[in-house]
């Protein structure tokens, strides 16, 4: 991506961000709350458009080839992207039918088993805890078979077994050659999994390099309101 900026109203959430991710690498996106991590991942997943700059994913332009990008990209975001009134299996079957992959009950149960929710397959999402919603979102990501996956605070709302589950999932996706971008505050944990790292501060890219060389605390200073523009 080159010179990408995005604002909400008068506040710039991303300012002139440029970087390249080699195919198949796992990249940690670090930064304080409000530094622009989620905005960056939402821009890259085409959930929102950049106001300035250009970005390409696997050769497809984010602004003009959105459907092509969406076939390549999956995102685990803050929202679960599910329907509370539908059961776990109904939600997954809906998504599978839209994507055009096997939506059989067996395939969906296999997927739910992968994320540890097979026993709750018939329960409505509105009976799920926040951690379980995160797991159903992960099932959605796996269903898409994307080649680029964005994980926005994947450890959030999870218990310790959930942390290990995410670690295993990241390793599994990495082994399959999937490119991953992971925004997280779990810097030590993520450093062990990631090849590269970038740090955002007040919407600007302030550091990039090997994940193991990430400055302690991500080289972050106390938070503040983004000022100026691109």
């Amino acid at each position, binding site marked *: 991506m080159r010179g990408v900026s995005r604002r909400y109203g008068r506040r710039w959430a991303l300012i002139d961000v440029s970087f390249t991710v080699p195919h198949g690498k796992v990249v940690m996106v670090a930064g304080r709350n409000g530094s622009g991590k989620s905005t960056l991942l939402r821009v890259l997943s085409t959930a929102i458009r950049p106001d300035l700059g250009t970005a390409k994913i696997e050769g497809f332009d984010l602004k003009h080839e959105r459907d092509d990008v969406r076939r390549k990209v999956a995102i685990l*975001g803050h929202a679960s*992207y599910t*329907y509370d009134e*539908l059961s776990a299996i*109904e939600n997954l079957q809906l*998504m599978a*039918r*839209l994507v055009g992959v096997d939506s059989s009950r067996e395939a969906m149960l296999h997927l739910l088993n992968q994320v540890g929710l097979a026993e709750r397959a018939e329960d409505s999402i509105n009976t799920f805890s926040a951690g379980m919603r995160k797991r159903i979102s992960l099932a959605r990501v796996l269903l898409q078979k994307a080649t680029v996956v964005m994980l926005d605070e994947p450890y959030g709302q999870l218990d310790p077994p959930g942390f290990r589950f995410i670690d295993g999932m990241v390793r599994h996706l990495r082994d399959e050659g999937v490119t991953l971008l992971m925004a997280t505050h779990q810097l030590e944990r993520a450093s062990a999994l990631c090849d590269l790292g970038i740090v955002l501060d007040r919407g600007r890219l302030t550091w990039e390099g090997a994940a193991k060389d990430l400055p302690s605390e991500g080289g972050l200073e106390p938070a503040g309101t983004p000022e100026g523009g691109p």
Partner: protein
Amino acid sequence: MRQLIAALRKEMLLQWRTRAQILAIFVFGATSLLLFSFAVGPNSTALRLHAAGFLWLALLLSSTLALAESFQLETEQKGLEGLLLLPASARAMYYAKAIANAFQLSILGIALVPVMVVLYDVSIENLFGVFGVIVLGAAGLSAPGTIYSAMASQARAKQTLLPLLLFPLVVPVLLASVKATSLLIAGDPMGQLKSWVTLVTSFDLIYWSLCGLVFGRVVED
């Protein structure tokens, strides 16, 4: 077509799961019909004369609740955004929701007919004709209603915004539906019914064609 069927299935399932809400909207519509009869007073001739108009006003008011509710479910966990990111066709998502809304409003309108008959002492010559006009009119309300409820769901004053946007646009459909229903109730000695039904059908075609084209722009950032 595969995406349309999958999305339509989702819409019907959601409507079934939230049927208590639909019942509440029906009670609202029936209460509106009752209040109109209070407004006119014990004048049975006037009530019969305006029965069709009152029926459609009740359905129009109820439709704002039903349409707003249909997008409330999409915004709770960003369900629609999630589907569009899969990627799913925005047009398929629109037509699925518009068809489901038209179905819901048709059922609502048909359910209000017995209430109208009892409250206004109306005898209907062609009951199935009235049901047919209700289906056509409901389609005319749901096509622009679905797109406006999508717009309003992203705004702060969503409860106020939807009727403000919707009511002026559906005046032709409402007018033609009232006239057609009135002729079916009171009789059609001058053979005017066909022209009013044609008018409703024409507006349905226009709304369903145009709204499907612009829905993507409304829901995408």
